[in-house]
């Protein structure tokens, strides 16, 4: 059977005006902090994004003080829709706890005007940690 595509059709995403996109936050010895947005990516109105990966890691560095929750997470807000956490990890920091935690998400497509964010929070007192949260993907014409 012969398959014929319309003239000019581009079937591979990377051939549709593709552009690599990414954002990240990596910091050491971050003290306890309130919920903070570290980066945001919003797909343009005429574009989509194939998220290749979204990774989060927390490495505790100082476990002093009373223990409490630390989080490093990705947040997805569909255009006009409700936000949801799409990838993340929670860890108890402080109280002598030293443990590394990581999570990973692959294969999500952002539609036009969908927003992906990276956030961190540490509600402990006196603890500190290193944080890594980043995404990489391919943006292409919708």
């Amino acid at each position, binding site marked *: 059977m012969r398959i014929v595509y319309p003239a000019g059709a581009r079937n591979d995403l990377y051939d549709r005006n593709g552009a690599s996109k990414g*954002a990240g936050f990596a910091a050491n010895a971050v003290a*306890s*902090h309130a*919920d903070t*947005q570290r*980066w945001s990516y919003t797909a*343009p109105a005429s574009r989509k994004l194939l998220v290749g990966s979204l990774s989060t890691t927390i490495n505790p560095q100082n476990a002093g003080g009373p223990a409490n929750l630390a989080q490093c997470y990705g947040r997805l807000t569909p255009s006009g829709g409700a936000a949801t956490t799409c990838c993340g990890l929670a860890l108890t920091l402080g109280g002598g706890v030293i443990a590394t935690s990581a999570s990973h998400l692959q294969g999500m497509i952002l539609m036009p005007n969908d927003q992906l964010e990276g956030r961190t929070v540490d*509600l402990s007192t006196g603890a500190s940690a290193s944080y890594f949260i980043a995404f990489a993907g391919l943006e292409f014409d919708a």
Partner: protein
Amino acid sequence: MRIRVKLKRSAEGLWFVDLPTFAMVPGSVEPVIDELTTPDGVLAVADQTDSRLQRLSCMVEVPDDYIDERTGKPSRVTLRLLHRGHPRWGLGNSTDPDIDLQL
């Protein structure tokens, strides 16, 4: 392009930057206020409603095409075009992003 913008607090208690796409530069939060902030953000134990926190800013990386060459600031017209239809940034009658470089 790297610019300094306000770090704002949402009703749900999130410290955020009012731009569709950006990446915060680690250690760039200013001013550092004893018992309230560090270079990486607002301390969890701080009074989140302290009036001194209204002056917070941070450095961010934004796409070059956000910037109006005449003003050196993100262009609201460009944001509306890039994100037309978006309920926050893409509507003609939406609240303009409160972008203040004079910090």
